[in-house]
């Protein structure tokens, strides 16, 4: 029998789960890929959907109390503010929502009312061009960092979208990348990149000088399989979405392993609404073991997560809210699990 430990001991505390799946517009998530926080307490969730369902792509708006406040979308296509496969989102200090689109190869900027501000990028490998933009981060001074998965590089832009510099190329040496995905900044402006297909996190100065590398391929503590996202808190602790291992790891500021999380989702407020009107499902759910022992051939993290609902499945983004609560965005489970590091 295959079993997995849900939580290893450590400072991470589970707070709650937000969201529920949907197949329509409105309340609920459809393959959420990222989230962000406005100064006035709103939570924005980027719903990626998929190529056959682009009409459902949107940014949904809610708050910590799980009230659904609305959504916005300019629709699918190449027009201003439209999208096709949006995968990364961040909200800058000046309250601008930056969204990357890996199909349109561009960055689009909205204000927090959902109005279009600007966009830049087209497919290519020159300066100012993008190929498969993924993670995006904006520094305090407005500088925009974009990880380009198919150009295997990080490109830096001004807040207006003017190209500033480019680092990296395909490879597995220091400062080289293999399909980078998520990207994060620490309080001093250093840049952390989830070097996805190299199974590691690389840390750079804000000018792109390689500082250090965390992790290597594997399933052990401090090892990664296709990390998708990284976040760094005010004390320098590093959170990594270990996507291929379907888990979250907490590292200290030197990159030493502290704790691994496998997920422990519970019913969100919206999920409870569903259960309250579908008693046949709720009653049978109550007698089910949601963390079952599985046959030996179902032995990969992916297969285990596919049948273990509380576990992370497809953790594609990690974001810290102003109170440094960690939001784990799960594309395959249409929800966000929220944790917080105990500070003692």
């Amino acid at each position, binding site marked *: 029998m295959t079993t997995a430990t849900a939580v290893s001991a450590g400072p991470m505390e589970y707070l709650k789960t937000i969201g529920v*799946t949907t197949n329509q517009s409105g309340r609920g998530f459809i393959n959420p890929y990222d989230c962000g926080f406005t100064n006035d307490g709103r939570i924005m969730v980027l719903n990626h959907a998929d*190529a056959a369902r682009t009409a459902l792509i949107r940014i949904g708006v809610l708050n910590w109390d799980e009230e659904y406040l609305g959504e916005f979308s300019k629709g699918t296509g190449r027009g201003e503010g439209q999208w*096709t496969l949006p995968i990364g989102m961040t909200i800058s200090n000046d309250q601008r929502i930056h969204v990357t689109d890996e199909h349109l190869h561009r960055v689009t900027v909205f204000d927090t009312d959902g109005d279009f501000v600007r966009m830049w990028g087209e497919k290519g490998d020159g300066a100012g061009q993008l190929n498969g933009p993924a993670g995006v981060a904006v520094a305090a001074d407005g500088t925009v960092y974009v990880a380009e998965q198919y150009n295997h590089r990080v490109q830096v832009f001004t807040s207006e979208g003017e190209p500033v510099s480019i680092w990296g190329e395909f490879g597995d040496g220091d400062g080289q990348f293999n399909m980078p995905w998520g990207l994060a900044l620490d309080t001093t402006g250093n840049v952390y990149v989830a070097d996805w297909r190299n199974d590691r996190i690389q840390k750079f100065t804000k000018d792109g000088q390689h500082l250090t590398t965390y992790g290597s391929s594997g399933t052990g503590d401090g090892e990664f399989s296709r990390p998708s996202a990284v976040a760094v808190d005010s004390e320098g602790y590093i959170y990594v979405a270990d996507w291929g291992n379907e888990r979250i790891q907490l590292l200290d500021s030197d990159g030493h392993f502290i704790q691994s999380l496998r997920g422990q989702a519970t019913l969100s407020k919206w999920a409870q609404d569903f259960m309250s009107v579908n008693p046949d*499902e709720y009653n049978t*759910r109550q007698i089910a073991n949601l963390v*079952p022992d599985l046959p030996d051939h179902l032995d990969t993290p992916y297969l285990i997560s*596919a*049948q273990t609902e509380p576990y992370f499945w497809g953790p594609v983004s990690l974001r810290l809210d102003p109170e440094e609560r960690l939001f784990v965005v799960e594309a*395959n489970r249409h929800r966000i699990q929220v944790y917080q590091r105990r500070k003692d």
Partner: protein
Amino acid sequence: MSNADIALMAHLMRRAGFGATRDELEQLVGQGYENVVENLLNPGDAGVMPDDVIRRYHSEMAEMRELNSAGAYWMYRMVTTRNQLEEKLALFWHGLFATGYSKLNQANALVNQITTFRRHSLGSYKTMLVELSKDPAMIIWLDNHDNHRDNINENYGRELLELFSMGVGNYTEDDIKECARAFTGWTLGNVEYMSTRASRDSIWPYSRINWHFNYRDYDHDDGEKTFLGHTGNFNGEDIIDIIVQQEATARFVCTRLFQFFAADDVNEAGEAVISDMMATYFASEYEIRSVMRTLFNSDYFRSEESRFARVKGPVELVVGAVRMAGTYQEPTFGADQLARQAMYMGQGIFQPPSVEGWHEGAEWIDSGALVERVNFVGRELGDPSNPGVRAIIDRMSRQSAGALSPEEQVSACADLIGPLELSEGTFTSIREFASEQGPADLRDGSRTEADEQRIANLLRLLTATREYQLA
């Protein structure tokens, strides 16, 4: 390297796989027919499009929420695998053990079922039937989760005998009941919740929860059973042990394999091959690898008689065209179309019309399906920017001593997408088309986009022929 060798290898690859390009055929002929058969029967690294790359790009295939995601995910594998027989056999088992999404609402379980088929495809038929009986998708599909110690449900027991092993006329109604009793307690983990979700098509609250097998000892009828003349306190494995020893089972599985891989219709020569396959089945302790070796190495299979004796199924047709065109080699926007196209042609992956699978042979094709077939394949092979089409044009270019006559154009194209044997009427019709559309000069220096498009037009027309519909 003779044309006959190429034609034979093309035949083998159409049947054991989805077809091969000329470059591939030349390489395979160099290895020798029987070595190629051995490689097909002993697959190594499949070299398929990696799961991580698929799941990163295709959120729908990562989640495997619904039908077309699962179908396209499998088709990516068929399109990119080096182990063509592995996927062709999986497709065969999917048709034989036809399990449908409609009752399950669980694409992940269906994908796992195909993985199970792949794992046991070339091994013992006994193991295959045991694993099939434990397959969660099959359990829900044929109601074995409702088969209880105190209240049997015969559905799985009946179909196991009728559709998966012996065929009607080889057992009694009592045997069915005893068989069903032996499979009581074979169910899913959390079956109450999972079957409720299945029956309500629920993705709530947090998407599908995949299934796994669970044996409930307390719900299993451990009493004495008499099955096909044997008596004992049989459990499911014991029943399957008896089933696989039956001559009817050998005949059944060998005939189905023959019809899928050799010819839609079984003639006298075919009967002889089936007898040989049955002998191998018993001699090898029910090993499918050995049975397939007997088939592929038989004189009948290698003879002209079995060439183009099957109508290509829709999945075969779509995958064959895509492999020939060289498209979908990496994650592609709108890849769900691969699955949808086969459905438009009458073979929705994971949507067999019933537990009996698809009606094959000429029944694949009606006028609606034919339009879909012609248009899809034409789009793939009628576009000179597709890598496989370009490769065909490049090859013709290398072989060109001068501008090609209409006759030369048609012959070369028919050769390179097959070789395809054309009837005189078909050949004449396409030659006339070639004359009308104008000359093609593919020599370096004189080759233009218009020349390339003319060749692509010919490929489009050649794949629209009756002859191309056959494998």
